[in-house]
């Protein structure tokens, strides 16, 4: 009996946790889901959704605790879901931008800011494009940054 409650609480917390990312996902992704305009709403609702996630997480933990107290057999699936959900909630609370970025990149190609040329992927075959661009800017001071994406 308590197993399905734990599972439901875990799934509910997962859904609400993922909803907090809504503000950071690209609009086409949201549009496809029929949620145009939801990003604004979700951005404002993020603290509430996270709080709701934590409450549902607490409900799930309570269900497990009560089950253990009654020596009831816990569903393995429910326990795994609860663990995953706890990890997800913690990650979303600590690194919301990183996870939103990951999801955004999965759903679309990385985009450069407006006014810039698209991101060039250098290979040994086309490396000369960087050299050419560098030389074309001759007459200007040129700054080269070597960066890590994360």
């Amino acid at each position: 009996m308590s197993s399905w409650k734990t599972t439901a609480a875990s799934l509910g917390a997962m859904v609400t946790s993922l909803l907090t990312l809504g503000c950071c996902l690209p609009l086409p992704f949201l549009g496809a889901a029929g949620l145009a305009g939801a990003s604004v709403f979700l951005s404002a609702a993020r603290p509430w959704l996270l709080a709701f996630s934590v409450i549902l997480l607490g409900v799930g933990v309570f269900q497990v605790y009560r089950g253990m107290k009654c020596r009831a057999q816990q569903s393995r699936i429910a326990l795994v879901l609860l663990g995953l959900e706890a990890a997800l909630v913690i990650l979303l609370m600590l690194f919301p931008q990183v996870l939103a970025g990951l999801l955004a990149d999965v759903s679309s190609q990385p985009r450069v800011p407006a006014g810039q040329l698209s991101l060039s992927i250098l290979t040994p075959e086309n490396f000369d494009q960087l050299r050419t661009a560098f030389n074309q800017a001759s007459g200007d001071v040129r700054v080269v940054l070597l960066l890590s994406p994360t």
Partner: protein
Amino acid sequence: MFAVWEPILPTDYSSPSTGALARLADPRVSQYWDKNHLFAEQLASRLTADAGHPQPSCCKRHGIQWDEVAVYPQDAHWDGQLPRAVYLEGPIVHALGFANVVAELLFKSVDSKPTSEEFQPTRSIPLVLFTQADASTLPNAAELG
């Protein structure tokens, strides 16, 4: 400005995200994903071959240059080998001296514009801070006569 992104850290499993690219929002920036560290190799090659090249105090990981900023003067031309930078330092977050070097290069008169081989940047442009003087150190009116 050329932003060359390369995988260095264990978390760099893919090209920079839209969020990372957005950190350099100026339209004058060109952004590159250099998965094979081709630019870093060119830079390392130049550093090895040119004893007079500015040597960065940081940063290398597994022998690959990263987290560095290089400044090239107006006359620098990249032929077979990367030209000599007038400034090369890292980590970028602490290499703010590059802005002074850029300013010096930009404000040099055309007539006295040095070549990349001659340019010797000052380490920094001194900043003069105007602070509220300690009243006890100021002469009083009687001392001033």
